[in-house]
Each structure stands twice: as structure tokens, then as C-alpha cells.
């Protein structure tokens, strides 16, 4: 992978606590899977940086090499890759996402997290 792209990605994920590489933007997602993760983060009132890979082909391919993960969206918390849509959904339902945010000092709404589980159980 091109070092320029790698540096670009490293900069983005180090400058923001929570970064979502997605198709579209937080309020205009353009793919169901991206929309689901952005929706979860918004509902949990997590402050995150959305990176629209549809606007940057270099990042769109580079991020897959960077994390060795073939799909978009990709969620990063404090510089670390957490998962794609399936994993974030599972972690939301199991409470692991709450735990991760708490451990990493990322503010979120505990009430909203509990509500998601109640409504989907």
C-alpha cells in the first residue's frame, strides 16, 4: 500500500477518537451497512469522524489493506480497528461496545445503549 495513503489513514485515526470509514456521510449514508453503524453511533450520541470512502478511491482501497478487512464500513476507536457492520451490531447487542467505549473514555449515552438492547431483544 502506498505510504502516502497509509500516512493519510494513520493521521485521520490518530486525530479523532472515533472514526467511521463509510459509504456516504453520517447524515447521508449511501449503503445499508454503513447506515446501520452510523445510526448506532448517532443513537448512542457518540461523537465520531465520518470518512466518506466514495469520495476518495485511494482511501476506499487503502483502508481494506490497512486493516486487512475487505469491506466497508470500518470502525476505529482510539487508533484501533474494531469491526464492520456485523461485529458492531453484535457488540452493541452484547454490551461489549459500551464496555469498549467506557474503557477507552469515549463518551456515549448508557441509557440509549440499554434502550437499543431492550427494543431489540
Amino acid at each position, binding site marked *: 500500500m502506498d505510504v502516502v495513503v497509509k500516512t493519510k489513514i494513520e493521521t485521520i485515526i490518530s486525530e479523532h477518537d472515533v472514526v467511521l470509514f463509510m459509504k456516504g456521510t453520517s447524515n447521508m449514508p449511501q449503503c445499508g451497512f454503513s447506515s446501520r453503524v452510523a445510526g448506532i453511533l448517532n443513537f448512542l450520541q457518540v461523537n465520531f469522524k465520518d470518512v466518506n470512502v466514495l469520495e476518495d478511491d485511494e482511501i476506499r*482501497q487503502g483502508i481494506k489493506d490497512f486493516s486487512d*478487512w*475487505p469491506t466497508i464500513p470500518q470502525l476505529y476507536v482510539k487508533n484501533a480497528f474494531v*469491526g464492520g*457492520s*456485523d*461485529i458492531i451490531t*453484535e457488540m452493541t447487542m452484547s454490551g461489549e461496545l459500551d464496555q469498549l467505549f467506557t474503557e477507552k473514555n469515549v463518551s456515549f449515552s448508557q441509557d440509549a445503549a440499554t434502550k437499543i438492547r431492550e427494543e431489540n431483544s
Partner: protein
Amino acid sequence: MAISAEKLKALIKKKFPEADIEVIDTAGDSNHYSAIITAQEFRGKSRVEQHKLVYKALEGAMDGNNGVLHALALQTKIK
């Protein structure tokens, strides 16, 4: 660009011979699948590692813009 359910299942079976594999064509277009895989190979691995094992089994079927498979909703369980 599409892949048959049988081919997808065979690719997974090749890497997880004793796994229970359920493949569902969620959009009826051979392009959007969901799969539930229960395998002992996942024991002791994080979810990301488990899913990466499955993606590797697909031998590039999902990779890049020429990947034959657009979406695979994945659920992995430990046998």
C-alpha cells in the same frame, strides 16, 4: 457479479471441514448473503479474527471493486 450459494458454501467448507454452515441468499440476487458458521477453529479468537478467517476462506471473492460478492452478513459461533 454473483456467486452461487453452493460455491460460497464449498469455499467455506474447504477451510472449515467440520463446521456447520448455513448460507442464505438474502436478496435473491446471488450477491447479498448471510452466513452462520459454527466451527471449532474460532475457539480462542476475537470476533475480528474469526471473521478474517472466513474472509480468507473466500479467496478474494469479496475483495475490491471486482469482488464477486457484494455483501456477506456474517455470524460466527464456536463449536
